[in-house]
């Protein structure tokens, strides 16, 4: 790593790798878990992995635009979480369960 050529304190590959792994863990959680709350959390995790990558590239190229996008992603994540949780509360009120399998009935 040469500090004059990049603003990052580790190589860009490190961040790419890390964000890939975090994204995959989030995706794995969506596949494995059945609890809706945990699913929402795994989505947040995936968004965070993307954010990490964006920030890494933004710092790498020394431009702030990508960080603005991270900002918007955080905003959208907050909105998504509120709506998702309220849907979840509705589902829980009707079925007394937070299992995603409940939504199978949607296709009937």
């Amino acid at each position: 790593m040469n500090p004059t050529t990049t603003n990052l304190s580790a190589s860009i590959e490190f961040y790419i790798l890390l964000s890939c792994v975090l994204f995959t863990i989030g995706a794995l959680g969506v596949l494995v878990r059945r609890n809706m709350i945990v699913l929402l959390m795994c989505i947040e995790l995936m968004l965070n992995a993307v954010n990490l990558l964006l920030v890494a590239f933004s710092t790498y190229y020394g431009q702030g635009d990508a960080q603005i996008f991270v900002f918007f992603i955080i905003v959208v994540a907050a909105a998504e979480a509120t709506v998702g949780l309220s849907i979840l509360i509705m589902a829980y009120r009707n079925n007394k369960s937070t299992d995603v399998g409940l939504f199978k009935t949607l296709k009937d």
Partner: protein
Amino acid sequence: MTAELINWILGGLSIGSALMVVFSKHPIRSVLYLIVTFFLVSGLYIMMNAQFLAIVNIIVYAGAIMVLFLFVLMLLNLNKATEPKTPLLVMLSSVGAAGIFVLVLIAALKDSFIQKSGQVAGNLNAGMVENLGELLFKKYIVPFEISSILFIASMVGAVLLAKREKPIID
């Protein structure tokens, strides 16, 4: 190299706690591990000199969204792990699929176009508040306003969805 070491520690810990989010039985434990993950990611942001985003990440994710999750978990009283057990086959195949997925991602990115040597010399302080403020309120002012409308929409939607309907008396 201290900075690199800190990066590696933060990265490793964040992967570990992300795994704990997925594999801990108790939803509340999952939430807490997710908060830990956010903190570690914020630490990485600070290492990348993106202080503003690091703090915003903590305030919004750890301070608001995760409190909301915790709040819902407490209100619904999901103290016991009520989740049905995932079949072993699904578990194994998901882990396998995820492994293949990460392999493909890495393979695809390995030979991609990232410039490897002496070129990028942008603004060192790209992540500082002054810079981001200039960008946000000049170049990206319209998306910013639209995102506030999105927020209001989601707020109204959440209130409407979560409001208990009055029983119809006939």
